């Protein structure tokens, strides 16, 4: 299948995720629980619907999710 990375990325940023999503405040409120569920290998997306979609659509929340996951995940390895 033909790759269309530039258009896909650009359209993704413009049009955002397709499904329902939480907002930034709800994302922040749930982020700690979401990360711990992820690190425990559980289905965080099913437990907190709409948060994964928000992370796909909001670069700032996505960065903070990645940081929290890396920080807490790194501690668990110690």
């Amino acid at each position, binding site marked *: 299948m*033909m790759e*269309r*990375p*530039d*258009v*896909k*990325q*650009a*359209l*993704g*940023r*413009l*049009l*955002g*995720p*397709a*499904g*329902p*999503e*939480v*907002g*930034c*405040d*709800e994302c*922040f*409120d*749930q*982020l*700690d*629980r979401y*990360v*711990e569920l992820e690190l425990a290998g559980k289905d965080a997306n099913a437990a*907190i*619907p*709409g948060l*994964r979609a928000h992370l*796909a*659509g*909001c*670069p*700032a929340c996505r*960065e*903070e999710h990645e*940081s*929290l996951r*890396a*920080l*807490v995940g790194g501690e668990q390895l110690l």
Partner: protein
Amino acid sequence: MNALNAATVGLVDPVSALSTLTPAPPSLDAESREWLQSLRGNDTTGQEAIARLHALLLRAARFEVARRRPTLPHLRGDELEDIATEAADDALMSVLRRLDDFRGASRFTTWAYKFALLEAAVKLRKRAWQGREVPLEPEGWGMFSSAGLEPDAEAEQTELLETLQSAIGQVLTPHQRRVLVALAVNGVPIDVLAERLSTNRGALYKTLHDARRKLRKHLQERGLALDTWLEEKR
């Protein structure tokens, strides 16, 4: 002050009902309970717990600074340390103010970390854009080019992109257009734009979300197959 400004719209689109699905939080683990009891103490224990919490938050803030350091080559080490300390100070105030909000859905330390990471990330994004103009108009549509498409695919892409650019100009309100272009086309960080427009992240994301929904609806009504062009992750 919490960088997200929690007084704004909490949910967007039809997700409101989703929050009712959230189960009751589990009981606190022993370590989290100890944190809460210590922080609520009025004696030396309380002061010691606050000092421990600040050290924890400073570690998280430094972690965030270290992750972002490659994007901030012009900042000296002492400036980055100042940012980390300021982020830890602000996060400490947020955590103490919102202590009653913690109900054990995660470990206390995970809950507290997110405040420090947020404060540090917001400060660093703003610092990176300090003194730079925030572009609110398209700087070009060059990113919408894919080389090597077959003629049929290229015609389909051209139609989609022309319709989209037209919709951005005609379907969106001026505010929605400025926000969409700044965030999704020009890559302005949402916290930077929020500061320049005297609003907050939650309100701006709601505007972005509404603009995106309008564009999707417009394209779908014209029979344009978005699935072909988007990597929809479910």
